[in-house]
């Protein structure tokens, strides 16, 4: 091949390139570029979309060690933040409960209370009792009344130790509370049943008790202040010839979810000996 042909080609290409540059400079190439971009840009975009993950892997493969460490650090950080978040949520829940209990104290302005946390439950299936973290050192005595949110009756202290106390819940089968249907003023005895339930017994014949009626403590006997919320009537069963109706009451406070309670330290039940 003669030398003239490559030279001609080179000069042609040089002229073409310079002309194209000149057109670009003045903006005259823009229409051509726009038309070409309609075809070429989607193709280049498609190639980019396909190759980008490969490129990401290839370009970062050398950083495996640092990525692994960074991943571990982030994992640890995530774990720490999750723990912190759970702690904050727990604190918030605790604070909410304390606020609710504080609200309960407003209902009894003449009473003194000791805030206590439930720290254990009686493992037996036939008893409903909890252990609270306040005891005789905190002024808690046997027989004192324990209430919860909205001043609902929870139970009574049946064994006070130095730093803790066992509370028999009203749902304990051995628990009896003199109760009263708030709407009809019908009196009876609230007894605990297996399965964290309550039953209103010994209600006078002919008393009209209906579901959704509210049951409160009657104050009779002096063991509990009058008007403490006990629960709500859920079912009334009885035949015309029955001596007594079977009245089921749902406790206002679910015993299984108890976390914080208030011990009425200023209320002296009649069974609490003076000076104990």
């Amino acid at each position, binding site marked *: *091949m003669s030398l003239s042909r*490559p030279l001609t*080609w*080179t000069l042609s*290409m*040089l002229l*073409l*390139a*310079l*002309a*194209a*540059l000149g*057109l*670009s*400079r003045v903006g005259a*190439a823009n229409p*051509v*570029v726009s038309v*070409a*971009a309609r075809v*070429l*840009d989607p*193709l*280049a*975009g*498609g*190639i*980019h979309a*396909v*190759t*980008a993950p490969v*490129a*990401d892997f*290839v*370009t970062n493969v050398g950083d495996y060690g640092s990525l692994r460490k960074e991943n571990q650090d982030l994992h640890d950080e995530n774990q720490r933040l999750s723990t912190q978040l759970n702690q904050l949520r727990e604190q918030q829940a605790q604070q909410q409960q304390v606020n609710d209990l504080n609200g309960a104290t407003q209902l009894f302005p003449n009473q003194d209370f000791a805030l206590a946390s439930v720290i254990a439950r009686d493992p037996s299936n036939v008893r409903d009792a909890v252990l609270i973290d306040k005891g005789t050192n905190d002024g808690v005595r046997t027989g004192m009344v324990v209430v919860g949110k909205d001043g609902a009756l929870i139970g009574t202290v049946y064994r006070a130790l130095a730093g803790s106390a066992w509370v028999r819940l009203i749902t304990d089968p051995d628990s009896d509370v003199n109760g009263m249907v708030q709407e009809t003023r019908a009196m009876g005895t609230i007894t605990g049943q297996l399965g964290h339930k309550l039953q209103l017994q010994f209600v006078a014949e002919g008393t009209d008790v209906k579901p959704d009626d509210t049951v409160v403590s009657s104050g009779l006997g002096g063991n509990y202040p009058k008007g403490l919320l006990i629960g709500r009537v859920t079912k009334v069963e009885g035949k015309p010839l029955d001596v007594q109706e079977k009245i089921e009451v749902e406790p206002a406070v679910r015993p299984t979810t108890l976390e914080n309670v208030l011990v009425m330290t200023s209320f002296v039940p009649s069974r609490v000996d003076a000076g104990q």
Partner: protein
Amino acid sequence: MIWYASVPLTLLIALLQIGAAPSFSFFGVHPDLIVIWLCCWGVIRGRQETMALIPIAGLVIGLAGGEPLGASLLALLPVAALAAVVEASPARGRFLAAIAITGICSILYTFIHAGASLAGGEGLGPPLNLVLVAPRAAALDLITAVLWFWPLRLAFGRRARAGSFRRI
């Protein structure tokens, strides 16, 4: 036959240069696939075919690459010249020749492309950047050329004719 395959392959490599190569960034630079492709093609298939592929590659990159039209074409012209030098050389070391012209063309491509872009109205930043980038890009292009040459040679290399044995 191979020549006809080279045109769509050149188009594909040009699109890869625009769409894929920037993602494969090592030490702050990405490979100039089109330079490597044309250099290898020039050594394996000769100057003449490369001269036909250069305007195709240069114009496609100019049209789709967001640069002044003609900048890539101008920057790729040295490939033809160096392919001609290799073709005229009696030396048999085609692999080393491909590596050598890839390195040279890569550096020339960086500088000529930058100059042409500047002439086309593009800003380039501090000139020191070019001095820093060009050797790194050339090194990356060399490594890529090493990986590409033998597969391309096997796929597109010219076979010796059977008659040539008789002449020996």
